[in-house]
């Protein structure tokens, strides 16, 4: 096994399981529909809440799809093989994550403009939303990976994983919705964006190593 | 004909962009479904034919 053969096989696996990416997308759409139906369909409610709704939906969709990232590898023994492959585990985690980010986030970004119309977001605000998504979503994936690695050996990891990880998502969600809310009332929002980027960068250095440690502990 | 001229037909009052984009998108989706289905059938037939011929030879 080499880094490139690992990377290639990850891409292949994503292609084989492309329905998974579609599922994440439809799930995203579904969660967004839940709010108008469950709470209120009026513009007065939806417009101010839109940033929060979209970010909650993104967080859930990312979490749900990251959750299973190592499951299959664990069950079929590939994870063990990665550990003994002699390759540097954090790099493998990062490669896997990059592939997942592309597969999940790109379609999601494409869908966002349409959905923001349904939640009455203005075109100007849309750009802020997309910026927060691009800057913040890496953090979602990176944090999620740690949870996925920790819960991989549990058969019923989904709820537990949500539990462990959601609190760590809160800062990302708060700063993102903060930026959007600021933009909606015409205030500057560069500060929030900078913090989002900083969180992503920080998790980028930290999370692959933590995930690798967790994987090594899970495989036994 | 409900329209005086071809230009008027295209502009549809002020609603031209709406009407024509709807029909454009619908046309693409319908044609897409049509060609995808026809092509899938042709491909399957071709694949089976090759397989049967190969089987007959061996």
């Amino acid at each position, binding site marked *: 096994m080499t880094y490139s053969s690992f990377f290639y096989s990850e891409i292949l696996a994503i292609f084989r399981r492309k*329905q*998974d990416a*579609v*599922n994440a997308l*439809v799930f995203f*759409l*579904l969660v967004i*529909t839940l709010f*108008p*139906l469950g709470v*209120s*369909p*009026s513009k007065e409610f*939806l417009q101010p809440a839109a940033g929060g709704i979209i970010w909650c939906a993104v967080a859930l969709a990312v979490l749900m799809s990251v959750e299973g990232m190592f499951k299959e590898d664990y069950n079929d023994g590939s994870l063990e093989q990665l550990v003994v492959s002699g390759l540097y585990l954090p790099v493998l985690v990062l490669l896997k994550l990059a592939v997942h980010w592309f597969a999940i986030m790109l379609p999601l970004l494409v869908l966002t403009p349409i959905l923001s*119309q*349904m939640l*009455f977001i203005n075109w100007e605000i849309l750009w802020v939303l997309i910026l927060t998504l691009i800057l913040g979503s890496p953090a979602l994936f990176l944090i999620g990976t740690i949870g996925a690695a920790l819960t991989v050996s549990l058969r019923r990891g989904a709820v537990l994983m949500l539990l462990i990880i959601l609190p760590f998502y809160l800062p990302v969600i708060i700063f993102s919705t903060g930026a959007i809310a600021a933009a909606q009332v015409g205030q500057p929002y560069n500060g929030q964006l900078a913090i989002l980027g900083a969180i992503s960068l920080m998790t980028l250095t930290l999370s692959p190593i933590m995930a690798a440690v967790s994987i090594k502990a899970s495989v036994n | *004909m*409900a*329209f005086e001229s071809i230009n008027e*037909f295209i502009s*549809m*009052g*002020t*609603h*031209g962009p*709406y*009407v024509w*984009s*709807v*029909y454009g*998108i*619908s046309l693409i*989706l*319908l044609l897409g*479904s*049509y060609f995808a*289905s*026809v092509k*899938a*059938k042709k491909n*399957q*037939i071709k694949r*089976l*034919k090759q*397989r*049967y*011929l190969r089987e007959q030879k061996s």
Partner: protein
Amino acid sequence: MNWIWFHKLGSPKWFFQWANKWSKFAFVIGLVMLVVGIAWGLGFAPADYQQGNSFRIIYIHVPSAILAQSCYLGLGVAGLVSLVWRMKMAPVFIKAVAPLGAVMAVIALISGAIWGKPTWGAWWVWDARLTSVLILFLLYMGVIAIQNSLDDMQLADKAVAVISVVGLINLPIIKYSVEWWNTLHQPATFTITAKPAMPMEMWLPLLLSTLGMYGFIAAIAMWRMQTEVLVREHRSNWVKKEILDNGI
């Protein structure tokens, strides 16, 4: 009532040959009606006194909306047939029609959204009718997702049948709940249910294009089902004979 045709439809071979005969017929008739209906509606029907020319979107909007619902009904019935009588063609039908239904729902949604902009001033409002089409689309995506996610064909067949049957029973509930929901939360500002008494010159092309859409989709569905039959029955002698002798 003669039910023989129904039982025969359960036989892939019989269906394949039946579809060979009728699919082209349905396609040609459907296409002609669709083209005539739409051309009539676009070019010759009078403009609506309220909405002006934007109402011409109706000739694609209503056919696709009706088809989206009919296809889902079809899925449900096929699911029931598949679970109760284990008819071989039923899962084939579901697999072939679900994506078409989803496309129809998408066309209804897109055309409605674009129509909404000049008429209501918004691309989207959370109106009961609109929302129920959106949910219908989500239901289709569910069927498609489960079909594609399960590798085992028999399991996938059972799964889509189960989901379709559950959907069949729940669809009225969903529709009713959504309608009820909207009337409670929000006074219906825009009703698309109240029919404007449509003059004949508007209504006839609508009928034509709707019937045409039925024919068009039926033909495509038959081809897709034939493809699926070829995939599933490729080891049977009649498929071999059909392909080698008739050169289809």
